[in-house]
């Protein structure tokens, strides 16, 4: 794993990038974009923020396979969980 610490300028750049993405997501609501467009913008901004936090701060890019498994396994469980309870929700409609 690359343990090299983030420099001050790198940290500031990461913060700036996250702040810009936050503004983009917030503008989608503040400017009252059409619902579908607003949802696309909000989730694109949120996923980009998550990617930046994972890559720059949590340093997932340089982790070993075990850590990837530990990070992705619960997401797979949650997705499976969602599919399992969808029939209940459809039936109740």
């Amino acid at each position: 794993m690359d343990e090299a610490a983030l420099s001050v300028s790198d940290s500031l750049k990461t913060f700036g990038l996250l702040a810009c993405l936050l503004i983009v997501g917030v503008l989608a609501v503040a400017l009252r974009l059409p619902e579908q467009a607003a949802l696309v913008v909000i989730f694109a901004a949120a996923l980009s923020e998550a990617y930046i936090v994972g890559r720059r701060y949590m340093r997932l890019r340089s982790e070993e396979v075990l850590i990837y498994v530990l990070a992705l396994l619960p997401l797979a469980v949650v997705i499976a969980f969602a599919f399992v309870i969808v029939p209940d929700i459809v039936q109740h409609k």
Partner: protein
Amino acid sequence: MTSTTVEVGITHLPEETASSFEIGKVGMWVFLAGETTVFGGLLCVFVLLGLHHGGWGAEGAHVNWRLAAINTLILFASSMTAALAQTAAHAKDWPGIRRFLALTVLLGCLFLAVKTFEYAGDFAEGFTPLTGLFWSFYYATTGLHVLHLSAGVVVLFALFLLATPKKSAEWLERKLKYACLYWYFVELVWIFVFALVYLTPCAA
């Protein structure tokens, strides 16, 4: 490539293999995996019930997304200072470690103060956990996040108190790495809570 060995029971492992397997880091990731399932499940049910109800638009119009946006910015700033504390620990800069850890703790406390103000406003308007399904999920999700963030503040404050030259720099750097990993995870969870609980209902 080192050729020295470390004795583990009766087996001899190459030193590099032994040192690259950080049991603390793996333990932290196992813990975070469990937390991901908890928050993932909660947010998943929130979204599916929202779809079942035809969206949370009516209820969601009352959430204070402006305060939540300010809190998001505060969390982003706190992650930056946490990363800078790690940088300072790497450089064995003790005053730097303490300064950036103090800033991270203060920003965490600021987040909690804003959140308290937000909850007070919601209660004043009559929106309690008993008001309806949306508000139950709203308080459950954000309340659970607040609990996690409070735990992070306590851990970082403990490290702030322990960050003295009496401690080994390597020890502190390692502990700081695990604590910051947790802090970044709490930030990651908030990114999705903010998008799903605050912004999405307002966009509907």
